[in-house]
């Protein structure tokens, strides 16, 4: 698997290939001038990987578009961007077009929309080659096939003629990578390349990116908000905040000796997959500032616990810290040396529940699923709709949730998490099996009983923007459930104020509209609404995944605190396994509509028994460069099979690394016999014929 280089490198290894100096990017908006990037400088050496980290609005994506020259025409850019020592700013579009795709290439975030739907992937790769080199069609197609092979697309000879819609998201991102490396670029800019993908697919795509880099020797600028990806991929890091670089250095400097309080806070607020952290997370209070009308001074001042008057007066420049390559922008660098996030951002006190004292077995069961199934008919045809099969969305799961506990539900998209939630919330009759809320079977309820029971079961959605009606003031939003259930108006008014205070919002803001609140605040409003009817069970569907890293911790702490105060039980769906480890007491891992492993969070995370759980945990990059360097990763092959046509026997066997090394008789068992959930030691069960820790020989074959 190797491709012929098309050209000789203009910049040799070790030398600077891309040099950015004092980059300023400004564009007009309705609200005023957006100063998206304010003075960014860096040097990128040939063949190295540099990460630009920051939250939304920090200017990282704007930087990538400015380097590529793909910014909107109204944008004003000053400073200097030099590729191979040649200035790019001021070149016209024709000159830049010659460089784009040949010397520098870009991989975008959303692979579903980044490929033109009406051309085959081969057409699109060939187009990228022929845009720069006068190559015959036959040769270009041959190269396209080699590139697809390199990025790990099976049967590249036939797949090259496929259209983008015939590929899954992960496969499309591989095609994007193939296209980006088609002309051996010197610089590849990857803008959140795996954010839209599942963790197992993210692991595959990151591997492909590493392979591509090894093959082409290109330098990579990795733009991301995911600190785990930074730790696993990059050698150097630039941390951006409000359009400014606030800290730069080697990945070890940034992760082990962060100096700027923002970096310290950011690293501290992320829950860790590899550490059991209970209690509150350190919190970066407040929100990233708007870059439209920034006040003078350091933009981090409103959130910084150590800000002094000097910080408000002038914006600090980057200056060298312990080593000349590690720079940070803070007026109090010297004074704050040696202070970690424990000193700077002490975690808040949380209320602990009295229930915590009571052993799990003695607490009442508030929600119980027995052999729950939900099948959907698979229909085809626009006019002649006919049933062509069945989607086994949820295919027999058992769960119980006891008072005051949190059950995490994890798995890749398409595994049935959301369907399970919908079945619980529906309070109706599932395809088979039963849902019991506080001991009542939901399939036998009358309309009135169902409405009464619904009070006990509330939901918080993923997207805080879409789940609040923008035309209602938040008072009405929070009051609505109580009005439906016939609360008295005077009680409602008191209660809305109490609820706002409870979730950490100002009661005086009740007459404002959702648009006046930030994402984290809106999620708090959603939580207040869910709490208004004093539910016993809260169903949380990815409640923090749409929020910025520094905002997540506050919402997670709030949920923790509310559980202690109100004795709530949570069903918490998340794709972020680190968040689940932090907040959940028990975890259920789902795969194709089945639970493959369930049990106490510590047991499952420390000693996973099912190969899928092992792969899932292994796929997640940990924000710790040393761990990442020594870790041996299990990368699952392929995508999730279709839930309409699941494999026989064990549904996971088609992607299982353990199955691959079993002898013939054992493999036959996996093929023919559906594994049941079998209890292991204590509170942990796994559905695998060969459950147990990962063995060295299983990894060696990969």
């Amino acid at each position, binding site marked *: 698997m190797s491709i012929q280089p098309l050209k000789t490198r203009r910049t040799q290894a070790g030398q600077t290939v891309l040099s950015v100096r004092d980059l300023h990017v400004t564009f007009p908006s309705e609200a005023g001038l957006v100063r998206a990037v304010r003075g960014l400088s860096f040097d990128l050496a040939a063949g190295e990987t540099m990460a630009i980290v920051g939250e939304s609005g920090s200017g990282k994506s704007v930087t990538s578009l400015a380097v*590529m020259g*793909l910014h909107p025409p109204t944008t004003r850019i000053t400073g200097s961007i030099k590729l191979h020592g040649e200035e790019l700013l001021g070149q016209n*579009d*024709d000159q830049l*077009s*010659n*460089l*784009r*795709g*040949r010397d520098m*290439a*870009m991989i*975008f975030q*959303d692979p579903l*929309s*980044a*490929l*033109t*739907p*009406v*051309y*085959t992937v081969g057409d*699109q790769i060939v*187009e*990228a080659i022929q*845009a*720069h080199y006068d190559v015959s069609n036959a040769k270009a197609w041959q190269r396209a096939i080699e590139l697809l092979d390199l990025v790990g697309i099976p049967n590249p000879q036939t797949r090259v003629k496929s*259209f983008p*819609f*015939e590929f899954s998201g992960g496969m499309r991102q591989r095609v*994007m990578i193939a*296209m*980006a490396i088609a002309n051996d670029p010197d610089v590849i800019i990857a803008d959140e390349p795996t954010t839209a993908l599942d963790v197992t697919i993210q692991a595959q795509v990151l591997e492909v990116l590493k392979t591509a880099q090894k093959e082409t020797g290109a330098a990579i600028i990795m733009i991301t908000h995911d600190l785990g990806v930074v730790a696993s991929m990059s050698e150097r890091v630039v941390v951006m905040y409000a359009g400014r670089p606030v800290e730069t250095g080697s990945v070890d400097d940034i992760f082990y000796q962060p100096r700027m309080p923002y970096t310290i806070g950011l690293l501290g607020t992320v829950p860790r997959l590899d550490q059991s952290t209970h209690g509150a997370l350190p919190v970066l209070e407040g929100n990233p500032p708007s870059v439209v009308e920034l006040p003078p001074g350091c933009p981090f001042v409103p959130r910084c616990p150590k800000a002094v008057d000097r910080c408000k007066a002038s914006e600090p420049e980057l200056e060298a810290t312990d080593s000349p390559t590690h720079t940070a922008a803070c007026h109090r660098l010297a004074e704050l040396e040696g202070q970690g996030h424990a000193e700077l951002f002490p975690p808040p006190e949380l209320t602990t529940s009295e229930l915590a004292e009571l052993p799990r077995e003695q607490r009442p069961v508030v929600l119980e699923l027995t052999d729950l199934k939900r099948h959907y008919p698979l229909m085809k045809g626009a*006019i*002649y709709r006919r049933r062509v099969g069945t989607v086994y969305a949820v295919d027999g799961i058992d769960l119980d949730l006891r008072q005051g506990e949190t059950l995490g539900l994890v798995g890749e998209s398409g595994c049935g998490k959301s369907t399970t939630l919908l079945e619980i919330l529906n309070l109706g009759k599932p395809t088979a099996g039963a849902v019991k809320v506080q001991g009542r079977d939901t399939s036998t309820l009358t309309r009135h009983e169902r409405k009464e029971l619904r009070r006990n079961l509330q939901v918080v959605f993923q997207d805080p923007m879409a789940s609040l009606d923008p035309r209602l003031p938040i008072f009405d939003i929070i009051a609505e459930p109580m009005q439906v259930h016939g609360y008295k108006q005077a009680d409602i008014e008191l209660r809305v104020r109490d609820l706002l205070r409870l979730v950490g919002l100002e009661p005086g803001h009740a007459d404002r509209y959702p648009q006046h609140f930030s994402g984290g605040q809106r999620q708090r409003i959603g939580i207040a609404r869910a709490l208004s009817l004093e539910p016993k069970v809260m169903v949380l569907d990815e409640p923090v995944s749409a929020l910025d890293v520094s905002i997540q911790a506050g919402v997670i702490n709030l949920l923790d605190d509310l559980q202690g105060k109100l004795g709530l039980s949570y069903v918490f769906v998340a794709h972020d396994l680190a968040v689940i480890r932090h907040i959940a007491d028990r975890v259920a891992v789902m795969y194709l509509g089945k639970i493959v492993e369930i049990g106490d969070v510590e047991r499952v995370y420390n000693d996973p028994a099912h190969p899928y759980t092992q792969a899932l945990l292994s796929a997640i990059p940990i924000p710790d460069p040393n761990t990442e360097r020594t870790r041996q990763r299990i990368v699952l092959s392929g995508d999730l099979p279709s839930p309409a046509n699941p494999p026989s026997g064990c549904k996971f066997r088609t992607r299982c690394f353990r199955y691959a090394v079993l002898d013939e008789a054992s493999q036959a068992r996996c093929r023919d016999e559906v594994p049941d959930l079998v209890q292991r030691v204590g509170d942990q069960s796994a559905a695998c014929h060969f459950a147990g820790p990962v063995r060295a020989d299983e990894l060696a074959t990969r």
Partner: protein
Amino acid sequence: MLRYIGKRLLNYVVLLYVAVSLTYFLAATQLNPRALFALRQPPIPPQIVEAQLRQYNLSDQVPLLERYWIWLTGVFHGDWGYSPLGVSVAEQISTRMWVSLRLLLIGTLAGILIGVAVGAWTATRQYMPSDRTITALSLLIISTPAFVVGTVTQMMAISVNNATGSRFFEFIGETGDVGNYPLADLVDRAQHLLLPTLVLILLGATSMSRIQRNLMLDSLGADFVRTARAKGLRQSKAVMKHALRTALIPTGTYLAYSVATMFVGATFTERIFSFPGIGQYGVDTITNRDVNGVVAVTAFAGVCVLVGGILSDIMVAILDPRVRLA
């Protein structure tokens, strides 16, 4: 694919049968051909009127279902019936169809093509003076009723004719005084076609350009255009090859549909320029209480719509691989 189209065709035939039958019941109960003879001077004896109505299966004294049955069996033998005054409906439609086609084909097609081009172009120049000017002009034309546009064009043509003292612009009927030179017949027809075609282009292109502009704006902002640019394609090529190609998918269905339905959609243009086409016939049949005519025009329009539906399905399948292969 063939089986699929066959199935759809069958579905359409059933749909058409139901629609036409319902129209028959509506027309036969609501239109009163007898009234046509009531005001004649000298009065016609009722027996003669009744005999004539019965001859053409139009008498309201015959039970509705019986009339329907007679009409239906006639249709199956290719006989679409007669007007109360005895004119063959089938003959009318078959001659007028070609009149409509000659009048409308060039104008409709050119209108769509020009509309697509203008729409796509203005989208690439969003909010620039050229875009704003074209937007304002096309909104003006779209909000002007078709008969006003037609009449104003005619008046302008008359003043040009008067000013130059020529008869360059012809706008009554299909043909006029044919000159005495080679291809004179063709030149005469072209002269008569010029104005109505202009009006059709104006009306078609303006609304099409609005649609195409919005489609194009959607695909100009799409991620895949940025991908194409990141590969090193020039702006113009990325727009033509990636944005326009994708934005043409909905246009394709619209094109197929409007070509098939143009026969019945230009009543005003036909009337103003005195082209005795199908659109005019549709209105005339209603005012003349011509039950069989109304039903036949409805059936014809129905066939056009269904053919348009099939054509646009085929068009989408050609343009969009997601439909073709999924």
